């Protein structure tokens, strides 16, 4: 029995698994997550050869990629720009506040603020070993960085994405709009809990390679695993383990549908056994 199952069970070579960001499953407690673009009025994106308004457009396109998965209920909602008089997002250090996950300490007095939802900002912080470190120094080749900087237990409350526009030689300045959209989408993947993929063409691959205009199967499986579409089965099919604490109205359709199916089967079987008895 197992033999033929294994013969049939080879997925196409392009299907790989996904990874998660942490050793526990971290996920937003609500399936609609707003994504803001930070504009502190200091043209922080300028070294990247785009503007904050361009970034709003890139974020819109990037959210569309994640929102296309029918088996996931996650909806990233582009929420436009937030402006502020401080420059804490664009100059601050990206690190978590409660030292729970990931374990990184701030070395700088100015921390990127703790947020609710996802904030995307351009960073002008080129300090060594801070936002874009590579072997202890600042790297222009790192395109962006993301940290969940507000956690409540295993629920993500907020994540911050920083685009590396720290100086005039950053790698992102030569990227096309479609490549930047893919870079933003990759970071949004981290922001909602996904780690890197081993597949070179995956959106969650560690590098920005080739054309990335859609998710791959492993990206889609990842977001479906973290944010599965579910019906209220009232225990009929078992309950989903992780995200069931959230206080969202449930969809009763599945339950009614399952009951109807069950009804049909029962009626069918009962009638069948009556007929059988009658024929006897």
């Amino acid at each position, binding site marked *: 029995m197992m033999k033929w199952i294994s013969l*049939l*069970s080879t*997925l196409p070579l*392009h*299907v*790989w*698994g*996904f*990874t*998660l*960001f*942490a050793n526990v499953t971290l996920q937003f407690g609500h399936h609609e997550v707003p994504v803001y673009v930070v504009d502190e009025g200091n043209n922080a994106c300028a070294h990247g050869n785009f503007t904050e308004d361009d970034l709003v457009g890139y974020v819109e396109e990037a959210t569309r990629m994640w929102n*296309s998965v*029918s*088996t996931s209920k996650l909806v990233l909602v582009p929420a436009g720009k937030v402006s502020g008089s401080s420059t804490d997002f664009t100059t601050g250090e990206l690190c978590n506040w409660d030292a729970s996950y990931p374990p990184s300490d701030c070395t700088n007095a100015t921390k990127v603020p703790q947020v609710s939802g996802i904030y995307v900002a351009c960073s002008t912080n080129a300090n060594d070993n801070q936002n*874009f*470190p*590579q072997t202890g120094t600042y790297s222009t*080749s*790192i395109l962006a*960085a993301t940290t969940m900087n507000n956690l409540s237990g295993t629920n993500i409350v907020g994540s911050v994405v920083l685009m590396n526009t720290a100086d005039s030689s950053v790698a992102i300045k030569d990227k096309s709009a479609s490549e930047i959209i893919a870079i933003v989408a990759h970071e949004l993947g981290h922001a909602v809990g996904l*780690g*890197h993929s081993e597949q070179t*063409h995956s*959106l969650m691959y*560690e590098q920005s390679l*080739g*054309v*990335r*205009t*859609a*998710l*791959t199967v*492993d990206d*889609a*499986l990842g977001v*479906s*695993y973290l944010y*599965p*579409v*579910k*019906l209220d*089965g009232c225990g009929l*099919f078992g309950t989903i*383990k*992780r995200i069931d604490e959230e206080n969202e109205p449930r*969809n009763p*359709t*599945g339950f009614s*549908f399952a009951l*109807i*199916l069950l009804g*049909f*089967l029962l*009626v*069918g079987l009962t*009638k*069948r056994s009556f*007929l059988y008895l009658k*024929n006897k």
Partner: protein
Amino acid sequence: MKLIVLVCLILLHLAALAEQTADYELNRGYFTFGSLTQFPGEYQIDTAGTKSSSFDFHPYFAGGLEYTLPEDWFITVEGGLTVPETTADEALTLYTLFLRSDFAYRVLGGRLKLLIGSSIMMMIMKGNGGTTTLGNAGSSTTFYRPELTQTTYNNTFDLGAEYRFNQEWGARAQLIAYSIFDSEKTQYSYTLSINYSWDLSQ
């Protein structure tokens, strides 16, 4: 809108149930073997941006019952399971379980059946756990493979057609539309299958 359509669907089912006192009758049972192609053309499969092919072979087995209704109508109920598959890195075992109900209408003297109905598609992802070290911003980081079993439940809208070679054998194509009420998430899958049916009415 969503609610109205769903309520209509449920009422139609109930109306059909009510018919049992008259012409509603269990008619035939059937066994199905086929392939489920999930979301053709939706996902990228290489760095050139090529999208997934229009046909992928994911075998499944199903069984069902067919009830007669007045005129040339039937109702079918069916349950099935795809053969479990494991990803190339063995991180995940995947299979799909489904329950489906269709209204079927017989045309061409019973040669062809047209089907309209709904399924609950359950995609089961069994994480096999473990870690992997992958590149991250010029160095490397430990990432975590999924270790829970997670299931997605989709209520789908289905359209299909079945050709009957004879009383026993038929071939069916069925389109499965996911998230039809949310255009951003709407996706399609389809099944191609053959079935063997036998008489249960006596």
